[in-house]
């Protein structure tokens, strides 16, 4: 999907579909299977961490409400969709989509969204570099090393925030701005969007309900 507007819409629609019903989750999973680069996105170290968190919450939910399996399936599909969205993201997309959606009012939220995505990328980069440094020292990540490591994560982010603020000030930014976003959706983008709408529709109105209505 080249058009970020449709991609973001598809991700939101499929996530909602997966969240509200098991049928929606199953169809959203089938959709995810057809996406390009789907397996590349699950190789990220953060994916394992999030998956582990889902497993833990599912077990607790299973014991307390009995719907653990349903929760596990639905949240896993949402996680897969989120990972795909993160991998497929191209810098500047949120900015363009925000301005397209909200006009001039979308400039600042778009800028904040872009900075947040950049911060996430930086965290991922920092984390891989710190792992290399620890491996070189032969140090295991434990309580004694966790404090300075997390401290450095935070400090790095604060330093970058200062640098970004300086850069924006030097360039004369106060608030708002002008951006003329352009998009070139292809035929596959439209097709993907329509399929996602169908899945969302099926999740909201189960097929058997439609046949009952027709009957």
């Amino acid at each position, binding site marked *: 999907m080249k058009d970020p507007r449709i991609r973001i819409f598809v991700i939101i629609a499929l996530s909602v579909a997966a969240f509200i019903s098991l049928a929606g989750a199953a169809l959203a999973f089938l959709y995810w299977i057809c996406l390009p680069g789907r397996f590349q996105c699950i190789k990220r170290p953060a994916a394992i961490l999030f998956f582990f968190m889902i497993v833990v919450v599912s077990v607790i939910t299973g014991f307390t409400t009995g719907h653990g399996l349903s929760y596990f399936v639905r949240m896993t599909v949402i996680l897969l969709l989120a990972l795909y969205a993160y991998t497929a993201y191209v810098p500047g997309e949120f900015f363009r989509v925000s301005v397209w959606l909200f006009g001039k009012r979308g400039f600042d939220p778009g800028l904040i969204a872009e900075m947040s995505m950049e911060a996430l990328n930086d965290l991922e980069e*920092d984390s891989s*570099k*710190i792992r*290399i*440094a*620890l*491996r*070189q*020292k032969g*140090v295991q990540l434990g309580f004694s*090393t966790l*404090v*300075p*490591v997390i*401290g*450095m994560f935070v*400090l*790095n982010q604060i*330093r970058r925030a200062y640098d970004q603020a300086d850069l924006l000030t030097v360039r004369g930014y106060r608030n708002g701005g002008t951006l003329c976003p352009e998009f070139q959706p292809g035929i596959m983008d439209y097709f993907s969007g329509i399929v996602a709408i169908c899945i969302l529709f099926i999740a909201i109105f189960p097929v058997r309900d439609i046949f009952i209505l027709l009957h």
Partner: protein
Amino acid sequence: MALILESVSYTRGQFRLTANGIFEEGVHLVSGIVGSGKSTLAFIASGMVLPGEGSVTRTGIMNSLLSMQFPEYHTTGITVNDEIRSWGLDPGTVLASSRLSGRGDDDVTVLSRGELKRLHLGCVLSGDADLLILDEPFSALDCREKRVICRKISEQDHGTVIICTHEQTWLPPVDFIWEMKGGTLVSCGRVPEAILRWGLAPRHIRDLIERGLVPGNISPEAVMEAA
């Protein structure tokens, strides 16, 4: 003792790095513009990143160390003394050589980027790694500190030292020069002959060559002597 890169290639997005070459014992300079792939080469050479294709072989190298550009990544201690000890070194010696005497009990987070870099390089250059890879060792340092680091690098008495940098003025005496050109590692050969083949040579060295004066090495002292 040698590091051998054989038909190495690494791809990330649109960027592709290719490298072929043997890094013998001595000091190697890998020069290149920002974004040319020097850091990626450093990670591959250190074994911390595996190449997509090709092989990285070490002969006679028992231990290696990669110094990353940003010293924060290496920090695992809470105080300066803790950090030095985490490298298996004596704080007294490193503090003195890094000109941070009396600051051993300071929290590492209160050090400026330049001080942290000094501390980090002080630790790295006090070690005895057979293969030492320094990625942008001169970043965040002033001229005086760059000169000190150059002297410390030239005092390394064994092993292979690879310096990946875009620094143009403060460089230590080196034995070999390499260039990263469009993602490809190119050997210029052994110094001083390599200086003539060094396409990314700093302006002051190129000016000398144009005047028919070839410096014996690339350090400021050698260049001054030739001039």
